[in-house]
């Protein structure tokens, strides 16, 4: 089970979000991932390490290359949590609509 705290704090950084967006298009090497940034490869590797620890990306061994890809399980766990949160909030307000309707039975008569 991926750690949600680590996943969300990994997302707090714009460089890491851009890396994830790139990986959403498919597997990429560290060099490819470093390309759009004015950053050294070691700096990018540091970000990759955070994403890996958070369970959001995986590393494959291919000779001397270590291409990275998205970790489906980690991303889905986060997605599910957010959907639950959002649904709970929406449900609250739908319930509030009903509470308000019951509070103002005279509504509609007030139109001028």
């Amino acid at each position, binding site marked *: 089970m991926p750690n949600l705290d680590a996943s969300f704090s990994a997302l707090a950084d714009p460089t890491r979000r851009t890396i994830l967006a790139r990986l959403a298009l498919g597997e990429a090497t560290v060099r490819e991932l470093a390309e759009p940034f004015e950053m050294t490869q070691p700096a990018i590797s540091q970000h990759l390490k955070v994403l890996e620890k958070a369970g959001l990306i995986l590393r494959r061994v291919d000779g001397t290359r270590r291409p990275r890809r998205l970790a489906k399980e980690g991303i889905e766990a986060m997605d599910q949590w957010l959907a639950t949160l959002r649904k*709970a909030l929406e*449900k*609250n*307000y739908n319930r509030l*609509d009903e509470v308000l309707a019951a*509070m103002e039975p005279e509504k509609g008569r*007030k139109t001028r």
Partner: protein
Amino acid sequence: MSKMILTTEGDKHILVTRRFAASPEAVYRAHTEPQLVQKWLLGPEGWTMPVCVTDAQPGGKIRYEWTDGKGRGFHVTGEYLELEPYSRIVHVERMHLPDPTPDNHVETRFDPDGTGTLMTMRMTLPDSQTRAAMLATGMEHGMEASYARLEKII
């Protein structure tokens, strides 16, 4: 049906807006009177709020306790900072899971909007890390979908 809009602002803020078909007075009361709050601030189906304390005055305490009736539960504590009936509430709150989360500073406005009310809730978290813990890309995509729907309606 009115659509909730959730979005971010800067590094530390979250904005939620929602329209209601009731007066600002009614929406304000539904946020500050315990017997009304207990009817809607419940989250997922099956959860209830057996304890609801809303001492609606500056410095007054807030305490919400939720349970799923199967032994799971958590609570929120907070304090009111400013109240302007029936237009504005400023409070701080934190969740206990059971360790307290960083303080969430919340300003809620209730503005007349035609025959109803436009509610705008502006949350301020201590830093971008904390906010990221409440939000992420998935939610932002959901937001875009909401805006798209809104544009179609307008």
